[in-house]
C-alpha cells in the first residue's frame, strides 16, 4: 500500500492498441417480453473488441450489462428475450443470424463465458474432471484420455492446488475461489478468442477476488485472449480495463479509454457513478466524529465479553459429537452510544455468527450485556423481548427479509404490535412517522414488498428496526446487495439517524471501503477471533496485523493511475474452523500498540 506500484501497462491512446478486431458489435438491440409489452433492454450498443484487449462494461443493476453478454453468447432465455436488431461480427460471421447448431460450435471454442456465481455455476452431481473434459470434447475430436490430459492441463493453468485430486472431486468440496478457477479453466480449455466474464469476482472475498483478477491478467498475457469484463465495481474496472463502456438503461453513456474516463469523465452519469464509489483511504487524517461522545449519555450500550459460539458436528454409531465448528472464539468488545463499530472479515470468519449470537438466535457462551442488563442464555419469550427492544437487526438481503404477503406498513408496525406498544390510530401514526423518517411516504404503507426497489426495501427494513426505538442496531452486510449510488444513500440515512437519535451500530461487512466510511472503531476478524481492533484511523492508517494488511492490499483501487502491476496477495485459502472434540483452538493474545489499538500476537 505504501509504495507506489511500478508503471503498469495502461494504454493512453488508441494508437497503442492492437489493430485487429476480434469481435465487432454494431447497433445491438435486445428486447425482453414483459406483461406490459416488449421492452428494449439493450439499445443500440456498438463497440469493437481488439485482440488482447480488456473492455470493461460498467453500470448499475438493470443497465443491460448481463443482457449484452448473453446476447453475444446466444444464451438469451428465448422466447422471453431476443436480439431484435444490429449485428455481432466474429471473424466475418454475423452471430445474430447463425442457426443454433452453428452457434453451438462457437460457444466455448471461440467465445467463452464465466459467470458471477461460482457456487451454482458448476453441476453439483458431476466431477470437476468430467465437467472440464466435456468442454474440450464438445469442440475437439479427442479420445477420453487425451481430453482428460487437456483438462488437467487447464486446471494447472489456472493454478489450482492439487489439480490431479481436483479432477475426481465434486464442486461442493471446493471453495468459491477454487470453483471460479475451475470455471475459468473450463472457459479457456479450448483457447477462445474472446472471454466474457460477467461479474466474475462479485461473489468472492476480497483476497480471493485479487487472486482471480491477477489470474485473468496473467492468462490474458499468455494467450492474448480478448476479455469483456462486466462489473459494477469501479475498483475492478480501474484495475483491469483498457477501455470502459459505461451503460445506463441499456444505452452506452460513455465509451473511452480507462485513464481519461476516470480522470475526466464526459458524461454526467459517469461522474455520479465515480463520485459514489467509496475509496479506501479517502478518510485518512480525518477523525471520526461522534456527536454523542463525551456526554453523560455516552454509556456503553453493548458489552460483549468472551463470547464463544461453537456448533457441534455429529457422527458415529451413536451419533455423538465428534468435532466442533469454532465459529466465534472468545470475542470481547464494547459499543458506546452514538458509535459505529465496524466488524470486518472474510466469509466464514464468524462475523455474522456474532450478530446472531447477540440477538440470541444461536447458542452461545460468555457474557452479553445490553444497556447494562445481562442477556440470559436460556431463551425465554419475555426475556428476549425485553432486551430486543434495545437491540435490533437489519439483514443483508432486503428481498428475503420482508414477508412478501404482508403490506410494508404491517411489517414496520409488527414490532410495535408484538411488544404491545401501540394499536389502532396510534400505530398508524407511528408507522407513518417511521416511513417519513427513512425517506419514504406514508401513502406507500399499503403496498407490498415486491413493489419497491432494493434500496427502498432496505429503508423499510431500517424503519422496522427503528420501530422499537432501540439503542443499538446490528447491520449485517446491510448495504452489500445494493448498487453504489443506492448504497451511499442508505449509508447517509444510517449516519443521519445516528446523529439524531444517538444510535449505536455494529456494522458487519466484508467491504473494507464501506467500513472505513462509516466506522468510528474497527475490529478485524479472522477464523472466529478478532486479530486487530482500534479506532478507524489506527486500523486504516497504521494496520499492524498481517491479515489486516493483506485485506487492505487486496482491495481494488478505483484509480487507473495507481494500478498495480501485480496484486501482492498470498495464494491459498483460509483454514477450516472445524476442530475435533477434545482439541482446543489457541486463543490470540493482544498487545496494545498505543492508545487502545490492540493487535493479536502469535
Amino acid at each position, binding site marked *: 500500500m505504501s509504495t507506489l506500484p511500478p508503471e503498469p501497462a495502461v494504454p493512453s491512446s488508441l494508437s497503442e492498441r492492437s489493430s485487429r478486431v476480434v469481435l465487432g458489435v454494431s447497433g445491438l438491440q435486445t428486447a425482453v417480453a414483459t406483461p406490459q409489452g416488449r421492452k428494449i433492454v439493450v439499445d443500440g450498443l456498438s463497440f469493437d473488441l481488439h485482440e488482447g484487449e480488456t473492455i470493461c462494461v460498467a453500470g448499475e443493476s438493470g443497465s443491460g450489462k448481463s443482457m449484452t453478454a448473453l446476447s453475444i*453468447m446466444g*444464451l438469451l432465455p428465448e422466447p422471453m428475450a431476443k436480439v431484435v436488431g444490429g449485428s455481432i461480427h466474429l471473424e466475418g460471421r454475423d452471430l445474430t443470424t447463425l442457426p443454433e447448431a452453428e452457434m*453451438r*460450435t*462457437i*460457444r*466455448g*471454442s471461440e467465445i*467463452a*463465458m464465466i*459467470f458471477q*456465481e461460482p457456487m*451454482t*455455476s*458448476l*453441476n*453439483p*452431481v*458431476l466431477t470437476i474432471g468430467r465437467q472440464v473434459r*466435456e*468442454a474440450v470434447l*464438445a*469442440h475437439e475430436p479427442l479420445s477420453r484420455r487425451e481430453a482428460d490430459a487437456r483438462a488437467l492441463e487447464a486446471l494447472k493453468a489456472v493454478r489450482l492446488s492439487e489439480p490431479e485430486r481436483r479432477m475426481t472431486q*465434486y464442486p*461442493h468440496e471446493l471453495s468459491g475461489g477454487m470453483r471460479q478457477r475451475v*470455471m475459468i479453466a*473450463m*472457459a479457456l480449455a479450448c483457447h477462445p478468442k474472446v472471454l466474457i466474464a460477467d461479474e466474475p469476482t462479485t461473489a468472492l472475498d476480497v483476497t480471493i477476488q485479487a487472486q482471480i483478477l491477477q489470474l485473468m491478467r496473467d492468462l490474458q498475457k499468455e494467450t492474448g485472449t480478448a476479455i469483456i469484463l462486466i462489473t459494477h465495481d469501479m475498483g475492478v474496472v480501474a484495475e483491469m480495463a483498457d477501455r470502459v463502456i459505461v451503460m445506463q438503461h441499456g444505452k452506452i453513456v460513455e465509451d473511452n479509454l480507462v485513464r481519461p474516463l476516470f480522470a475526466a469523465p464526459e458524461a454526467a452519469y459517469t461522474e455520479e457513478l465515480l463520485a459514489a464509489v467509496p475509496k479506501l483511504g479517502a478518510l485518512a487524517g480525518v477523525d471520526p466524529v461522534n456527536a454523542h461522545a463525551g456526554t453523560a449519555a455516552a454509556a456503553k450500550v453493548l458489552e460483549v465479553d468472551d463470547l464463544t459460539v461453537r456448533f457441534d458436528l*455429529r*457422527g*458415529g*454409531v*451413536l*451419533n455423538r459429537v465428534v468435532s466442533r465448528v469454532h465459529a466465534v472464539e472468545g470475542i470481547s468488545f464494547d459499543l458506546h452510544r452514538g458509535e459505529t463499530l465496524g466488524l470486518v472479515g472474510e466469509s466464514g470468519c464468524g462475523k455474522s455468527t456474532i450478530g446472531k449470537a447477540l440477538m440470541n438466535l444461536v447458542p452461545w457462551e460468555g457474557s452479553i450485556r445490553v444497556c447494562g442488563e445481562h442477556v440470559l442464555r436460556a431463551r425465554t419469550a419475555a426475556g428476549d423481548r425485553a432486551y430486543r427492544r434495545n437491540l435490533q437487526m437489519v439483514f443483508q438481503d432486503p428481498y428475503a427479509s420482508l414477508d412478501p404477503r404482508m403490506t410494508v406498513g404491517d411489517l414496520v408496525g409488527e414490532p410495535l404490535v408484538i411488544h404491545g406498544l401501540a394499536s389502532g390510530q396510534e400505530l398508524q401514526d407511528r408507522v407513518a412517522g417511521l416511513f417519513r423518517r427513512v425517506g419514504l411516504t406514508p401513502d406507500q404503507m399499503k403496498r407490498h414488498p415486491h413493489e419497491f426497489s432494493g434500496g427502498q426495501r432496505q429503508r423499510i427494513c431500517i424503519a422496522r428496526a427503528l420501530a422499537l426505538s432501540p439503542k443499538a442496531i446490528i447491520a449485517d452486510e446491510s448495504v452489500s446487495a445494493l448498487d453504489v449510488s443506492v448504497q451511499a444513500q442508505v449509508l447517509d440515512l444510517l449516519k443521519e439517524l445516528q446523529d439524531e437519535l444517538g444510535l449505536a451500530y455494529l456494522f458487519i461487512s466484508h467491504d473494507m471501503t464501506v467500513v472505513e466510511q462509516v466506522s468510528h472503531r474497527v475490529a478485524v476478524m479472522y477464523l472466529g477471533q478478532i486479530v486487530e481492533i482500534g479506532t478507524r484511523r489506527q486500523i486504516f492508517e497504521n494496520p499492524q496485523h498481517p491479515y489486516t494488511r493483506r485485506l487492505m492490499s487486496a482491495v481494488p483501487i478505483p484509480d487507473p493511475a495507481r494500478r498495480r502491476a501485480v496484486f501482492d496477495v498470498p495464494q491459498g485459502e483460509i483454514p477450516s474452523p472445524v476442530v475435533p472434540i477434545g482439541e482446543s483452538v489457541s486463543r490470540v493474545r493482544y498487545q496494545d500498540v498505543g492508545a487502545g489499538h490492540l493487535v493479536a500476537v502469535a
Partner: protein
Amino acid sequence: MGSYVLRRALQSLLILLGISFFTFVLLYLIPADPARQIAGRSATTQTVENIREQLGLNLPFYEQYFRYLSGLVQGDLGRSYLQKTEVGELIASRLPATLLLMVGAIVCELLIGLTMGLVAALRRNTPTDTSLMVLSFVGVSSPQFVIGILLLYVFAVKLGWFPIGGYGTFMHMVLPSLTLGFLGAGWYSRMMRSSMIDVLRQDFIRTARAKGLKRWQVLFGHALPNALLPIIAMIGIDIGLFMSGIVVVESVFGWPGIGQLAWQAIQRVDIPIIMGVTLVSAFAIVLGNFLADLVAPLIDPRIKLR
C-alpha cells in the same frame, strides 16, 4: 458408512417392533371374534370357548403379545387359524408373485411418469404440456379398481390382446402392472415436470450451454441427473403406496400374491395372516426407504451418510 448402516438397522428394528405392537392392539380391539369365525355359526358356546382356549385367545393381552413376539424373534409368524398352515410358508409361496407385480408397476410408473414429466417440462406451457398434465391428473385421481376394470374391458375383453386374469406369462403381467403403476405415473409426471423445470433454470445449465454442449448432452448429461434426485427418495415411499394398491389390483386380476391373501384373511378375521402380511409389508417399506437412502449419495455426492 458402516456405523450409519448399523444405526439405521437398529432404528428399523425399533420401527418394526412398534408396528407389530400397534397392529396387535388394533386387531385385539376389533369387535369380530376369530373363534366364532372358525367354529362357524351353528357351533355351541362350548366349542367356541374350546377353540379360544386352544388358540390362546383367552389369555390377557400382554401375554398374547409376548407369545407372538417370542415366536416372531425365532422367525415364527404363527399358524393360520383357518388354513392350518404356517403363515411364513403361506407368505413365502405368494411373495414372488407380488414382488414381480411390484417390479412391473415400478417399471411402468417410472417409464410412463418420467417420460411424461420430461416431455411436459420441455414443452412447457404448450398444448402438449396441458394435455399430459390433464392425463396425469386423471391418473392421480382415478381409483385403481376403476382403471383395472377399464383396462380389462378394453384390452382383454374387447380387443383380446391380453389374458383376462391369472398368472404365469409376461402377457399376464402387463395389465396389472399398468393398473398398479398408473397412479404412481401420475405423481411422478408432475414431480418430474416441476423438478425438471426447476433444474433447467439453474446456473449450471447455462454453463453447460456456454461450453457449447449439444442440446441432448445438456438435457441428459446435466439436467436429468439433478432432476432425478427428489424422485429417488419418492421410490422408497412408493413401496408403501403399492402395498395398499396390491390388495385391490390382485383381487381384480386374480393375481396370486400376498394382497389377495391379505384380503381373504381380513374377511375371515384370520389374525396371524393379517399380522404376518402387515409385518412383511412394513419390512418392505422400511427396507425400501433404507435402500433409497443408501442409493441417494451414489447419485448426489453432496449427501453424506453419517
